[in-house]
């Protein structure tokens, strides 16, 4: 394989990894604050993709209007799910909340099948985004470059919010000790709602970019990316935002490069994530950037 082909695969891997990272952040943030694996997250991503699809087709919105609409509606959806399905179980055992999350996941998948039919639909195409640039013999789509840039910008904003603002400080406090956070006067339900809002917004952005890259929407489109991004979050160390991004990149690169180098692996593409997960759980159960001791609030 020549250097140019390699660079091309590398660019694709980074781009796919960025998409994984955007979704993985949502898993990791919710886990950090609620110790909950939000199984519905992949389906929120799916809903966002449908919103984008309908916004730009039936309602013929320009992409930037649709983009804002998708973020706003998805954030509302995420907050409503938290309020309806998780908040009433705040004092219940984690397993109950987990079952509730699985329930929400099925609900969204079936609702989407019922409302939008199970038939996959074509996402609008963007000529400026799929336009191929020729960079010294390496041809890359504009989108392939934009996706990682968007992801990194979001990551920096997010790290700023979490490490440098009062809201971020409250989030970190709530993630360690609910009770004492309450005694500080922090309204923990609001902080949790903000966490879901951020996670859902990132899933919405991810869904929009995903739709441009893989222009098809269907009710089960969130299942596989959801699982993989959860795995990415675990690989990076669940609860750790930088870890989620790292895990996303590792997973994206591994998928693209392994399939590129070993053509015979093509059919096993989706298995790579699970194999990586098993390896990480054996070698470093807390994930690459995870804390040494698993702590429970």
């Amino acid at each position, binding site marked *: 394989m020549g250097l140019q082909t390699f660079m091309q695969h590398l660019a694709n891997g980074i781009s796919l990894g960025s998409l994984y990272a955007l979704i993985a952040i949502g898993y990791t943030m919710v886990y950090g604050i609620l110790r909950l694996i939000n199984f519905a997250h992949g389906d929120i991503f799916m809903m966002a993709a449908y919103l984008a699809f309908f916004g730009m087709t039936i309602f013929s919105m320009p992409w930037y209007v649709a983009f804002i609409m998708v973020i706003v509606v998805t954030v509302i959806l995420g907050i409503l799910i938290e309020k309806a399905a998780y908040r009433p179980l705040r004092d219940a055992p984690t397993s109950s909340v987990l079952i509730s999350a699985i329930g929400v996941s099925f609900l969204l998948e079936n609702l989407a099948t019922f409302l939008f039919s199970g038939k996959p639909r074509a996402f609008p195409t963007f000529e400026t985004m799929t336009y191929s640039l020729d960079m010294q013999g390496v041809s890359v789509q504009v989108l392939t470059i934009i996706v990682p840039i968007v992801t990194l910008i979001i990551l920096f904003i997010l790290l700023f919010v979490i490490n440098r603002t009062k809201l971020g400080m409250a989030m970190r406090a709530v993630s360690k*000790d609910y009770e*004492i956070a*309450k005694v*500080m*006067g*922090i*309204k923990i339900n609001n902080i949790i709602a903000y966490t879901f809002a951020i996670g859902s917004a990132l899933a919405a952005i991810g869904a929009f970019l995903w739709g441009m890259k893989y222009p098809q929407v269907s009710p089960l489109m969130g299942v596989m990316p959801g699982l993989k991004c959860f795995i990415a979050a675990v690989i990076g160390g669940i609860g750790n935002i930088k870890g989620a991004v790292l895990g996303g990149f590792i997973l994206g690169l591994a998928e693209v490069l392994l399939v590129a180098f070993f053509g015979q692996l093509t059919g096993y593409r989706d298995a790579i994530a699970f194999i990586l997960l098993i390896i990480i759980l054996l070698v470093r159960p807390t994930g690459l950037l995870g804390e040494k001791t698993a702590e429970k609030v």
Partner: protein
Amino acid sequence: MLKIEDLKVSYGGIEAVKGISLEVPENTIATLIGANGAGKSTVLRSIVGLVKPVSGDISFNGESITGLTSDQIVSRGITLVPEGRRIFPNLTVLENIKIGAYMRKDDLSEDIAWMNDLFPRLKERSWQLAGTLSGGEQQMLAVARALMSKPKLIMMDEPSLGLAPLVVKGIFDIIKEIHKQGMTILLIEQNANLALKAADIGYVLETGSIVMQGEGKELLKDQSIREAYLGKSK
């Protein structure tokens, strides 16, 4: 200032606090002493709204605060230095100090300077993660965090637990110092001797009921208290 009437609290059907009444007048140091499991922490936790009482009433400055949420209660000027410090280990020392003032909207610099004055050790370590502090330093941080809310009433749950005698003395000096500055204090202590010496009023809690109350110095002289809590027979 703080008035508790016939407070009952249970955990899953087991009564931990069996109808107690107590009062903490403004500008006093009150202390609540009692053996392990007597229900001392439970009383404090119900005052700040972390556990809901079964019955009874808690009022603060004449207003009932029973059933309010913790943020509503602390916004009225009550704060807690919890049992076991419970500083936020993943926040820096300075952030722990600032989060104590979470509900305040005014400028904090004056009070941060005051904390640096009160606890020079913390100032040197302001950028360190609080989880890496020593036990005594964490206790100081827990007190500093509570003070940052500018409370009218500060409740401390065994602030001297596990600390060396010299540090304990330091903590009591600070209690007296903040009392001088006009704060009302409700103190829980295993160290009954020190607590009763510092206190204006003392309450003795035994398996969920108050069995004795009186001036701190009076209780200190009481024979049964000396035997039960001070380990002295005469």
